[in-house]
């Protein structure tokens, strides 16, 4: 199946092709937004059309028995193992956000007649490992995640791919962060090369007085875009941080909408981008403060370092504000490593390459060190160094 064919066919034909019986509303929404192309604002820097021209075998996630394991392992969209006692099961999607800005959110739902539902009980830490094994495949799946009110849960998410090629992963979460709870999500997505591409389209609801801490570490090459719509209720807080370290001709990044709906809601979104080779980083982020969200605070910042003259950062911070009673700020900077700092390190006998590595890691460290679990933190640092040394000679 070529996704580009969805551009030129009628509703009925598409309904048959995607087997959407009973989910026509989703299809209507998808059709009204249309398959993204280079003119679509959210996909402008991503070369999405190329991905849609490939002929994929659609691999529907067929639910099977779930084995017991230390972590949740999802192979090609199918849950293989999960920790004992975790409430994880398949079911039809009950609700999708019909106002989501991303057409691929709806396509993901349409291609996933059943979703993976995870209910995290109590104060828990959970690892979710996504595994991809098939070449030339379209792998669609969606996860609905709930945590418990008044509890603190942490999710560590990682991705592994076999030696595959030309696969497109189309996945995403619908997360529901319960009232008075804290949900931490740490995504570590290191792609050594272009084995597969990914479009991850998420929706996060943050209930009253809840905290959502969303950290994404996107490292390496390949093509991947995460699109997220986050909605904040009264006194809800979101702390989102995105670290991007790309090399070669990678195109990756974040497109987000942070929507303040409740009074006194607060959000902080920080992106740090390091771009090497011919890589292109994307940070297209909107903060929207609605009439109902008086006394909100919103802060957004993107910083980029270009390590190569052909690297490029597409940073587009935006504010859309409908009230006066709030505090909001946003900004974006792009620059290079400081010559003064480099020289200082070199003047102590540290080689040029190592000095660059130290400064690049220093730039990233303020985000990496917010990951409390030291093992996870070390893994991110190791992946980070690995990416560095694919393009720079060890000193």
């Amino acid at each position, binding site marked *: 199946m070529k996704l580009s064919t969805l551009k030129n066919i009628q509703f009925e034909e598409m309904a048959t092709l995607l087997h959407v019986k009973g989910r026509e509303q989703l299809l209507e929404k998808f059709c009204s937004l249309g398959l993204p192309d280079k003119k679509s604002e959210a996909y402008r820097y991503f070369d999405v059309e190329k991905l849609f021209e490939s002929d994929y075998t659609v691999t529907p996630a067929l639910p099977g028995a779930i084995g017991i394991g230390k972590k949740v392992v999802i192979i090609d969209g199918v849950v293989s193992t999960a920790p004992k006692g975790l409430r994880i099961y398949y079911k039809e999607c009950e609700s999708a956000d019909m106002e989501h800005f991303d057409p691929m959110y709806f396509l993901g739902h349409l291609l996933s007649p059943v979703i993976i539902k995870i209910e995290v009980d109590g104060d828990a830490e959970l690892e979710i490992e996504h595994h991809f094994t098939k070449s030339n495949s379209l792998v669609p799946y969606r996860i609905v995640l709930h945590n418990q009110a008044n509890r603190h849960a942490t999710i560590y998410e990682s991705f592994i791919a076999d030696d595959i090629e030309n696969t497109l992963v189309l996945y995403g979460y619908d997360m529901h962060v319960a009232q008075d709870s804290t949900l931490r999500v740490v995504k570590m997505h290191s792609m050594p090369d272009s084995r597969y591409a990914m479009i991850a389209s998420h929706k996060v609801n943050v209930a009253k007085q809840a905290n959502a801490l969303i950290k994404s570490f996107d490292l390496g090459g390949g093509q991947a875009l995460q699109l997220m719509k986050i909605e904040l209720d009264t006194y809800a807080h979101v702390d989102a941080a995105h670290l991007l370290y790309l090399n070669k001709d990678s195109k990756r990044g974040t497109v987000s909408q942070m929507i303040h709906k409740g009074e006194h809601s607060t959000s902080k979104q920080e992106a740090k981008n390091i771009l090497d080779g011919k890589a292109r980083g994307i940070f297209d982020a909107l903060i929207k403060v609605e009439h109902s969200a008086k006394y909100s605070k919103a802060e957004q910042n993107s910083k980029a370092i270009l390590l190569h003259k052909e690297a490029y950062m597409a940073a587009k911070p935006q504010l859309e504000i409908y009230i006066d009673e709030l505090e909001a700020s946003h900004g974006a900077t792009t620059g290079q490593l*400081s010559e003064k*700092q480099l*020289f200082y*390190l*070199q*003047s*102590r006998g540290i080689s*040029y390459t190592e000095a660059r590595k130290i400064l690049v890691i*220093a730039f*990233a460290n303020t985000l990496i060190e917010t990951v409390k679990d030291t093992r996870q933190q070390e893994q991110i640092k190791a992946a980070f160094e690995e990416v560095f040394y694919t393009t720079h000679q060890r000193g």
Partner: protein
Amino acid sequence: MSTNSIMTIENLQAKIGDKEILKGLNLQLEAGKVHAIMGPNGAGKSTLSKTLVGHYDVTVTGGDIFYKGKSIKEMEAEERALEGIFLSFQHPVEIPGVNNAYFLRSALNAKRKHEGKEELNAAEFLRLMRGHLEMLGMKSDMISRSLNEGFSGGEKKRNEILQMLILEPEVIILDEIDSGLDIDALRAVSEGINKMKDGKRSFLVITHYSRILDYIKPDYIHVLKDGRIIKTAGPELVAQLEEHGYDTIEEE
């Protein structure tokens, strides 16, 4: 060249941007001696220190620098450092996110590797640090903070001296090490410097004021004016400079 010279600077000419600053500077640093360079503002003192360590701002347009008999004019900054040339910066740069201890250990291990020695692990390194920190009156948390970030002027200078103590260089250039230091800090920093005196290392102390020279006794005073050394004498020259200023000094 004196047989006891560790560094010889011959007819050195250098510019920053289009501005010619060093205009045929000659100087010999003797092994085991403390050389002080004094001179008015804009004479080229800081440019000299930058030139000696291969700073990117400076273009050498003529002359040469010999270190242990070998020209270092074309050497990269890190090579010069590994060979034993150290500059204590007038304004040490702040590097947020780089842990001070990690930086110091990286620098030390780069040097040990260069010398064919085994690298130190974190525990060995911390043991080495402890005594130095105490002597310099530095709190132990300073090495777990980001490099120079939020350090006071005095703390930055102490941190420079800490690096010097750890790296054990052979030519030590101190660019206005006394600026911004109170009496206690000056004493601690001087003590660190004096500890390094072993009859083999050379010091090049660049200063505006004689105060530091009460603590680090110089063997030679050189007056740098308009890009050249115009006079070299013993420590007694300091008193003359204090009394009459630089204008009365005639080129030798």
